[in-house]
């Protein structure tokens, strides 16, 4: 066992050469590759981090926009709701107003109809009443009633003196028509009373079974009636007139 120092020096030189060769052909390519890989990974991570930050910023921006949109949507929905409520209230008010107006019109119309109906009913009632009265009086009428009417007419001749004088002027004969024949006394009294009003008058008594019970004075085309029909017609006109006046007074009230 000995040491050859020449070999030792050569081996040291060989080792240093080998160190340089391996550094040149082995370590540097591998370490450069590792460094490049690490740098690439670092760059990619930085890029990924930057992209992540950008993505987060974008997400934040979109979330803000979404929130703003939701708020805007909520505001619009609230505005629309208020508008709808306002529109609904207006429509309801208008409908109520129209209903009130129509109800008022209806009530007015109803009142008018009611009044018209009442008036018609009253008039019809009056006419029915008169008709029934006429029928009853016609059924119950007899010579006594006609004589009573004639007697009553005689009493009313004097207040109608001017009218009778106009009737008998020009010496026209006066025809006195009755439903049934009058008694002689009554005829004489009628003739006397007429001659008191018109001294030269000529009285002609006639009987007409178709005439209503009572007395009719005719001279030419002019006549004065005291018949049951005339009484009832006057009664009917008076009742209807009174009813209309009463109805008009109620409407004014």
């Amino acid at each position, binding site marked *: 066992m000995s040491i050859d120092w020449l070999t030792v020096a050569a*081996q040291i030189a060989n*080792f240093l050469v080998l*160190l340089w060769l391996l550094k040149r052909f082995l370590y540097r390519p591998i370490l450069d590759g590792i460094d490049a890989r690490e740098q690439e990974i670092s760059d990619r991570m930085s890029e990924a981090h930057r992209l992540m930050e950008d993505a987060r910023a974008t997400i934040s921006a979109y979330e803000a926009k979404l929130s703003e949109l939701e708020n805007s949507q909520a505001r619009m929905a609230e505005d629309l709701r208020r508008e709808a409520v306002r529109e609904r209230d207006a429509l309801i008010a208008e409908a109520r107003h129209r209903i009130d107006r129509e109800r008022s019109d209806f009530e007015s119309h109803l009142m008018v109809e009611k009044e018209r109906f009442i008036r018609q009913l009253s008039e019809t009632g009056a006419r029915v009443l008169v008709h029934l009265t006429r029928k009853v009086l016609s059924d119950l009428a007899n010579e006594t009633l006609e004589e009573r009417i004639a007697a009553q007419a005689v009493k009313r001749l004097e207040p109608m003196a001017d009218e009778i004088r106009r009737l008998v002027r020009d010496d026209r004969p006066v025809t006195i028509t009755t439903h049934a024949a009058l008694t002689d006394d009554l005829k004489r009294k009628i003739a006397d009373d007429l001659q008191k009003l018109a001294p030269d008058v000529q009285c002609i008594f006639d009987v007409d079974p178709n005439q209503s019970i009572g007395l009719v004075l005719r001279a030419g085309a002019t006549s004065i009636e005291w018949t049951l029909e005339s009484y009832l017609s006057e009664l009917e006109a008076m009742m209807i007139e009174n009813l209309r006046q009463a109805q008009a007074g109620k409407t004014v009230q």
Partner: protein
Amino acid sequence: MELTPDAIVIFSIWGIPINATIFNTWIVMAVLTGLSALITRNLRPSAPPNRWRTTLEVIVQGIQHQIEEITRRPPGSLVHFVSTLFLFIATCNLLEVVPGFDAPTASLSTTTALALSVLIAVPMFGISRRGLRGYLKTYLKPSPIMLPFNIIGEISRGVSLAIRLYGNIMSGAVIAVILLSVAPFFFPVLMDLLGLLTGLIQAYIFAILATVYISAAIADSGETQNEKEQT
């Protein structure tokens, strides 16, 4: 029987004898350089990583991490030195199984050269790290009285490195030769297999010890004592 390949002269250049140790070392250098160039010829940073590249990166990064665990700092150029030591010794020991190849590490001259390289590298790394003054101060710690002992310790490290590697490799070769003469065929094969294992282990140990020595030199003052105690 020649115990060292130093005695085998292959040829001479200008009167300088080239023995088997030097010649085989050149072969090892050629093999390592050739393989390295072959592996890394397409290894460009821009090229996409492939299986070979990933494997090499894993190995180199494993070595880097191993050195980082020992030195507790980024390895820097130390990884080149230690890796070269490991690859050279491991390749020499593995090529020992080739018939007719005498491992350069079976030569005490080679192991001495490697130990001297480590001995030179220790102060160089220490000075580059601490500066000349700071490095020399480490020999006066913990007190100036320890200066001779520290110097002896430094020298004994190199000697132990050289003798350990040489003894292991040379003993393996000697035992193989002896067994070959006693029981040819079976035992030499078995010993060669064990030689492969011990060769790799010796390469690993040499590289680790070199790392420890260098890390002790470049460590901070508080760490230095711990490193020395570990060795």
